[in-house]
Each structure stands twice: as structure tokens, then as C-alpha cells.
């Protein structure tokens, strides 16, 4: 009896008992569906996270101020997680929200130049920024929304800013606290039209400050995840872009002489995760040893990515374990129904043996049937899980990507369940005594 013949037989017996087959498959469908669903979601999520974080730069190490806690022992991944969340929040919200820290707690320019000197081999740039607030540029009827940001000269290198025209804020602009600004090409177009904005004056105002600045450069605007107006999907007309001014100029407005958070870009080839650890302990030992309230913590994009991936993996393993239990129960269900089936079909088995079926052929027939039940259930589960996972991903706003690996794994797994749980009933059928089987009432 050929494989094709056995498969045909298996489908015939499934369709003869549709309700029973469907109920039997349910355990498999749920188990496989759950695994595929979570894997699809996980793959979509980590794919998105990875690409986003790579955009942000895997060489970046963020050094930021952190309140001391009574039980401040950075142990295990829990600490990493909490820290990471805190950093993420700081990044998203923009530093410089209402702050209980005082001038002396902040990361000062002196500290940074010390770090730059000590770790000359590792540090490429140190980028410091200080948010002044959001507001607009106005000139008669013309206006453009903006966020005013004080930055160090290294900021452009660290954040991959692409200049269209002119130059970025330089050391001398910072040293001299000059009233110069670098604007986006969007803002330039709105305020100055086709004319070159370089050297032109622009009037900027925020809630707390207003002043006239000289435009020294234009950068290409990039929509990114951290851009609040891009997220809210505002029209181009209301688009708010960053306007960069020298850090010291911003410091005069905000009164900050140091920073809450700085980004250190490590040189290509240096281990940013290791560097983060080192710079953190160095800074704390040297500058914050006597500070009772504050210290700094450093984390690298690299380690954040690792933590993220680890978290995703742990989640997937946890869900997979639950799904495995569902599959086990499903498999037992398949075994049970196969035992019922062979009992019901005892006479058929006897007849087949009388007609010349070998024990092996009977065994193959029933194993095939069990495998087909599981495989059909598995395929339904895969479809169901992929749709569910994709739906979940789109609900969270991530691009969905089906996990081919998970699909192949699930198909293989269903087959294995069929083989494993089908073997015992099939073997029982194969070993039936033909006479007893034929006599069976």
C-alpha cells in the first residue's frame, strides 16, 4: 500500500467523522496557533526594535544621571531592565523635564573633557544636548514649528546629522555662546523660500525665551521614531523640526551648566558594552563618590539590544512552554481518538488482514491517519497563528513579518506529534489477531 493510498484513506476517514476530527484537532490547533502567533509577534517586534536601535547607533553609550536608591545594587537583568526603561523614557521624553537635582549634580563639561582624555582610545564624540522647549520661528505671516535644542559640536557626528548647506554648530560657537542656529531644510523652505538662508536672521520664540539667531547651516530633515510630530502624523505644514543652537547659548536660557544625559559615541572596533561599564564606574568613583543623592549610569545600545533580544527570547520560551503543554494534551487527545477509532474498526482491521494486509501495512495506515490529523490541525494552527500574530503586530504598530522558521518547525512538530501519539494505537491495531478482529461484535 503506497503512501498516497494511505493519505487518501486517512482523509476519507477524517471526512467521515468531521466533528470528531475537528474536536481532536482543536488541541493541536490551539497549541500550534499559540506558538506561531507569539513567534510572529516576537519576530515582528524584535525585527522592528533591532532596525530602530541600529538607526540610533549601536556605538552609542548613554551616560545619564540617576538618583541613588537605598538598595542600589545593580544585580541581574532586573536592574538592567529597570535602567533600560528609565533610559528609554528619558530618550523619548527628551531630557530636561522638571528636575529635583541641582546644579552640582549635573554632568559637567569638566567631567566630560576628563572622560574624553582618559578614554581617548574609545571615545569618538561626546554629544551633549539641552532642550530649551518647543515654539516657532516667525517672520510676519510666515511661521514654522520647531523644538529648540542646545547641542555640543559633537552632536552632529553622534546623531548622524546630514548637512545640506553651511556648517553645524562648532566648538567656537559653543565657547563664544554665539547666537547662531542650524535649521532643517523644511524650516528653511518655509521661512526663506528658494533663497539661501545662510547668514540670514531668524526670530525664534519658545514659552520661556525668544531671540534672533543667525542661520549658519541647513540639515536634511529625517523622520524618525523619536520625532514626536512624526509619530502623531501631523501634516507637513505643522511639522515641528529641531533647531540647533550652541549648548552654552541654551545653557544661558535654561540656567543649566551641566547635563542630565550625554551620548558618548565609541570608536568603531571598541567594545561599547564594556566601555559603558568602565566609564560608569570611573565617573562614579571620581566625580560622584561624595554625592549622596545622585550618581551616573551608562548603558550601550549594544547591551540594550541584547537585553531586548533576551527578553523577547524569554517571552517566546515561556509562551512556547505553555503551547507545549497544549500540544501534549492535544497529542493525548489524538491518541485517545485513534484508540477509539481502531476499536470501532476492529472488523475492518480483521478483514484487511484476511485480504493480505501485513502488520506493517496496518500500522502505517493508522500512523498516517494520526499524522494527517496532526498535520491538518498544525496547518490550520499556523494560518490561525500567523493571522493572529500579524494582527497583534499591526495593532501595536509594527510591520508584521511571518516567521518561516516557526512555520517549518510547527509543521515538523505536528508530524512528530502524530508519529509519537499515533504509534501506540497503530501498533495495537497491527498486532490484533485477525480471527479475534473478525469475530469482534
Amino acid at each position, binding site marked *: 500500500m503506497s503512501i498516497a*493510498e494511505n493519505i487518501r484513506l486517512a482523509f476519507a476517514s477524517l471526512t467521515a467523522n468531521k466533528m470528531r476530527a475537528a474536536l481532536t484537532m482543536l488541541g493541536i490547533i490551539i497549541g500550534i496557533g499559540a506558538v506561531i502567533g507569539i513567534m510572529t509577534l516576537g519576530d515582528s517586534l524584535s525585527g522592528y526594535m533591532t532596525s530602530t536601535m541600529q538607526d540610533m547607533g549601536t556605538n552609542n553609550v548613554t551616560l545619564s544621571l540617576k538618583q541613588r536608591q537605598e538598595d542600589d545594587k545593580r544585580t541581574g537583568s532586573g536592574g538592567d531592565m529597570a535602567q533600560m526603561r528609565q533610559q528609554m523614557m528619558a530618550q523619548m521624553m527628551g531630557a530636561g523635564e522638571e528636575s529635583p537635582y541641582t546644579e552640582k549634580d549635573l554632568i559637567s563639561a569638566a567631567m566630560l573633557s576628563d572622560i574624553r582624555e582618559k578614554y581617548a582610545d574609545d571615545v569618538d564624540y561626546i554629544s551633549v544636548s539641552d532642550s530649551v522647549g518647543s515654539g516657532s520661528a516667525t517672520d510676519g505671516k510666515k511661521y514654522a514649528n520647531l523644538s529648540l535644542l542646545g547641542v555640543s559640536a559633537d552632536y552632529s557626528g553622534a546623531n548622524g546629522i546630514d548637512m545640506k548647506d553651511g556648517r553645524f554648530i562648532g566648538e567656537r560657537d559653543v565657547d563664544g555662546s554665539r547666537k547662531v542656529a542650524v535649521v532643517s531644510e523644511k524650516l528653511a523652505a518655509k521661512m526663506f523660500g528658494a533663497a539661501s538662508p545662510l547668514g540670514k536672521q531668524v526670530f525664534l520664540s519658545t514659552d520661556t525665551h525668544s531671540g534672533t539667531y543667525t542661520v549658519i547651516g541647513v540639515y536634511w530633515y529625517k523622520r524618525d521614531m523619536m520625532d514626536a510630530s512624526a509619530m502623531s502624523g501631523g501634516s507637513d505644514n505643522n511639522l515641528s523640526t529641531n533647531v540647533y543652537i550652541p549648548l552654552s547659548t541654551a545653557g544661558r536660557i535654561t540656567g543649566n551648566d551641566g547635563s542630565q544625559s550625554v551620548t558618548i559615541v565609541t570608536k568603531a572596533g571598541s567594545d561599547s558594552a564594556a566601555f559603558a561599564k568602565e566609564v560608569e564606574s570611573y565617573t562614579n568613583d571620581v566625580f560622584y563618590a561624595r554625592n549622596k543623592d545622585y550618581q551616573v549610569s551608562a548603558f550601550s545600545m549594544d547591551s540594550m539590544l541584547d537585553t531586548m533580544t533576551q527578553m523577547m527570547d524569554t517571552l517566546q520560551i515561556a509562551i512556547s512552554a505553555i503551547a507545549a503543554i497544549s500540544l501534549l494534551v492535544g497529542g493525548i487527545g489524538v491518541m485517545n481518538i485513534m484508540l477509539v477509532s481502531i476499536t470501532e474498526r476492529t472488523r475492518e482491521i480483521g478483514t*484487511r488482514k*484476511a485480504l*493480505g494486509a501485513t502488520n506493517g501495512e496496518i500500522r502505517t495506515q493508522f500512523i498516517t491517519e494520526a499524522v494527517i490529523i496532526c498535520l491538518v490541525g498544525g496547518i490550520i494552527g499556523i494560518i490561525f497563528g500567523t493571522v493572529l500574530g500579524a494582527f497583534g503586530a499591526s495593532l501595536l504598530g509594527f510591520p508584521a513579518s511571518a516567521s518561516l522558521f516557526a512555520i517549518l518547525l510547527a509543521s515538523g512538530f505536528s508530524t512528530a506529534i502524530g508519529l509519537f501519539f499515533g504509534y501506540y494505537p497503530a501498533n495495537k491495531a497491527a498486532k490484533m489477531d*485477525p*480471527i479475534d478482529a*473478525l469475530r469482534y461484535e
Partner: protein
Amino acid sequence: MQNIIRLKGIAKSYFVGHPNEFRALNGIDIDIKKGEFVSIIGESGSGKSTLMNIIGALDKPTEGQYFLDGLDVGQERDQELSRVRNKKIGFVFQTFNLIPRMNALRNVELPMTYAKLPYQKRTERAKELLRLVGMGDRMTHQPNELSGGQKQRVAIARAVANDPAIILADEPTGALDTNTGHLVMDIFHRLHEDEGKTIVLITHSNELAEETQRIIALRDGEIVSERAGSGKGGRAA
């Protein structure tokens, strides 16, 4: 003429409720020639079916020797016995035993499937056989869409699918009315006379037994009489 079936001192014991040995068959000696049409009669419980299961290589005797076409069945492994049943023996049962959910054609194909005949060939032969037993117009019917007589005709077509030398029929007319029973008997006669099949028929009907060449009577697991019937010799006899 060669004896296709040779039973020498066959006994079959069942052990029901342990030390109680029950001898369903006791010291059976039968020789059946190739192409012979033999009937076995005897009252219920006399051991007819037990004997037939042994002849059909479905069961092994507890004592004695059985040669089927020269092969010592007692010595063979399960695998070989399956092959023997498939190629050399065609079973016809009182209860038809068609496989449910398989239409007439597929049922007839089944022994050829186990013989690994290619699809085209077995379908063709199954159709031909169904036409031969007068079921040409019901090939795609499921067993539950057929009458008893029709089922038995399909079962006979299935029994001869692999062109076996021997047909074993255990009360094939037992579930049928007299007329239908005769119709089925006619098919056996045709198979015997035209195709030279060796047929062993178990029946409760003396009338049908008379039509065969030899009548063996069993009682309590032993042969009590053996006599010639009025049946004609087959082509091979």
C-alpha cells in the same frame, strides 16, 4: 491430481477459564484436490469456522500439520502468511465484511492494493470483476447503499481479485434469502467450473451442500462422515 490442501491430524484447543481445555477441533485429516468443490456441514459449534480459519492461514492449529500448496503453514511467519492469504486465498464471509466508506470498486481493489498492483491495472480488473458478478452498474456505491445479495457479490469479486487458487466461503448465503442464495451459489459454480477454482464452502443448507462435489460433516470437532455430492467436476479437476 495434486492435493492443494492437506490437513494431517489437526487439533485446535481453546483454554477458557484456565485449566479447562476445550478442543474445538480434534484429529482432522482432510485432503482437497486442486479444483475440487467441497462443502463442510455440521451443527452450530461443531468447529466449521475454526477449521476454515486454519485452512485460510488466519489461525494456526495447536496440533497437526497443514500444507497449503506444499507450504507448511505452521512453520511460516506472520509476514509470509499475509502474503499467502493475499495471493492464494479468497475469503467470503457470512457478514460480507466490506470495508465501510469505500465504494464497491475500491473494496474489490483492496487485495490488489496489498499485492502492490499499479493503480491503472487494479481499477481495470476490479471493474471487470464487478461486471462478471453482475455489479457493473453499482461500482461507485458505498456498502451501505447495497442489498445483502449485492454486497455478497461484491465480496466474491473482491475474493477473486488476485486470482487465488482457493476460495473459502463461510456460510456465504447465511444472511441471504433462498433465491439470492442460489444466485450467489451460481457464481461459485461458475468460478469452479470455468475458472477451475478450488472452493471450500461452509453451509447449513444440505440442499446447497448437495450441489458440491464432496460433503464433509463435522460434529464436536471431528469428521463424522464424508460423501460425494452431485456437483460436476471443474475445469481443472
